[in-house]
């Protein structure tokens, strides 16, 4: 066991990572509740947005323009997918709709391969100006990016909670989570509300892609499958509770990074989200009967 001082730095980086997982996880949960779609292409959209941002920075765009491009790309692709494939699949099993988003994932992964990976596997990186500034907490260095990552996670979780609770659109989303048909009968413009949810989730995808590209690595495959970590958090929240998702995301990020200095486990630290999610799923389903149709429980 390494001394405590070696762990301190990883608490901060773990919380920052957890913050990004939290905002991704919250995005996934809200979209799932509002539209019934588990958006597995979340990571791929963010990855492609980040690579686009990198590309235009190479072409001489100013930093802020490239970050906006990343977020706009995430929002537009997600919105387009939701508008085109949302309605025709609305009546289908959640499983089938989740598998359909894997189609989008494959298209994006293939496109990223064609555009970026094959034209020389150059090492790419995005650095936000907030990497340089920061402060020290005791003897730990904290960058502003890490503060932003954790802060965004907190703000978005609280903000989304308030949005769902107090605004008209949020109420409509909660109503649709319960019953889409009845909500439509009550005069809620179902498709417009769904489009809003897709758009919001897309913005979060772009944001998460940008932050993770800075905090972890700008690499198509890595970023695409980092969504599994946020997915694990969302699953621990049973795709329902954004509070539990937030806490779970922080725990996943923390445990992952705190395992880094332990030499026996450091190679296995990427298993953290899988193991935690598997335990949570098994715990949740320990008393559930087998005899249910594969339909989401209301």
């Amino acid at each position, binding site marked *: 066991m390494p001394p405590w001082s070696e762990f301190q730095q990883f608490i901060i980086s773990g919380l920052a990572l957890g913050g990004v997982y939290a905002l991704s996880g919250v995005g996934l949960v809200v979209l799932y509740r509002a539209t019934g779609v*588990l958006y597995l292409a979340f990571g791929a959209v963010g990855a492609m947005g980040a690579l686009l941002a990198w590309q235009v920075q190479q072409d001489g765009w100013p930093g802020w323009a490239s970050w906006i491009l990343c977020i706009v790309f995430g929002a537009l692709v997600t919105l387009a997918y939701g508008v085109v*494939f949302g309605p*025709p*699949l609305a009546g*289908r*099993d*959640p*499983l*089938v709709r*989740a*598998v*359909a988003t*894997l*189609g*989008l*994932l*494959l*298209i*994006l*992964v*293939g*496109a990223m*391969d*064609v555009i970026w*990976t*094959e034209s020389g596997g150059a090492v790419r990186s995005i650095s936000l100006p907030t990497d340089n500034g920061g402060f020290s907490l005791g003897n730990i260095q904290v960058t502003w990016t890490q503060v932003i990552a954790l802060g965004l996670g907190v703000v978005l979780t609280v903000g989304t909670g308030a949005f769902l609770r107090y605004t008209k659109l949020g109420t409509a989303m909660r109503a649709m989570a319960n019953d889409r048909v009845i909500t439509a009968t009550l005069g809620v413009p179902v498709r417009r509300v769904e489009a809003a949810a897709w758009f919001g989730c897309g913005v979060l995808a772009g944001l998460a892609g940008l932050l993770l590209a800075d905090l972890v690595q700008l690499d198509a*495959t890595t970023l*695409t*499958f980092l969504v*599994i970590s946020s*997915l*694990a958090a969302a*699953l621990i929240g049973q795709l329902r509770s954004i509070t539990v998702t937030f806490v779970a995301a922080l725990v996943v990020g923390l445990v992952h990074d705190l395992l880094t200095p332990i030499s026996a486990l450091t*190679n*296995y630290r*990427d*298993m953290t*989200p*899988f*193991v935690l*999610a*598997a335990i949570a*799923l*098994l715990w949740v*389903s*320990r008393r*559930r009967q*087998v*005899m*249910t*149709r*594969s*339909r*989401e429980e209301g």
Partner: protein
Amino acid sequence: MADPVTVTTSDSAAAAVAAGRRPLLRRPDKPVQLSVTTVLVLFVLFALPSLMNGYYTGYMTLAAIYSVVTLGLGLLVGRVGLYSLGQGAVVQIGAWTGARLLYGTAQPFPIVVIEAGLVTMLIGMAIGLPALRMRGLYLALITLMFAGAITVVLATVNFPNGGGGFTGYNGSAVHIPPIRRPSIAGTDPAYFRFAVVVAIIMFALVYAHLRLRPGRAWAAIRQSEPAALAAGINIWFYKLWAFALASFITGVAGAVLAAQEHYLYSINFTTQDSIILLAVVLMGGVYSLWGAVIAALLLELVPGWLQSLGLSYAWLTILFGVGVLQVITTAPAGIADQFPKDMKRLGRLLWRLARRPAAGAAGAAGAAGGETT
């Protein structure tokens, strides 16, 4: 996924009970289909190896091996309604076990293959036992988690390369012996035949399952779990059986794959493989055994062909993505179902064109609209 044959709940329960009582094989196989299949198998076994060059022999061997993998996944998805996003990891377990046994023991090759299948089956069942308590989406996600975890473990443990100990990995080995092949099938064309024979046996095994009691139980479960339960089917047991069978044949395929590749590296196996596997299986068609063959050709032969044209695999990934969306939105039974229909439609169209050129031209415009595969 919408079933092509929708039977009401009470019907399927009654059918399941009735089917349980009647003797087997009531309806004789279609003679045309049977003879076409036989001719095709004989052609692949005896004529094809001498017609192919070394380049395509390698890809066709992989296609033969992966047809067993896609068969297993197609069985889970199409017959039982279990979407697994972790089949790539199951292949890895089979390949690892096969490689370890081939390096570590002098057992005959077929024995090792069966052992690899059994070990994979046990691991698959150990995961399936708790996972089967979950339904649709959650089960798919836990298999995705499992695939991710296995990939991480194997990236650390590495595939055996002739070293000692449990892992059989020696990081400082300079001369790595290749994974051995059976003595009767050392050359590439001979090993292709071997892989095809293994695939045929696995297809026969699955076919037998589908025709017997488990197949009927799975059909009932897919239609409606409550109705199947009411009909006295032990849902949990038969789901686990499907999991075990799919894991077994996938493990067998993994062991055959290990000897085909000669050397295995964990970097060649990714989480993405599992997703692409599901994509091609859906595209090929999950309700037919031919779907598995089509899926394997899409997965392994088409890349070889693309590469000879100078196009990269990435384009194929995009195509698979489009294929998944297309299959889910318009053609749930995949190419295996759609292709014969389209061919029939095309045949009718040509027939009409040949007979009445003037009237046929008008019909062609109408029919062509609905002919997207």
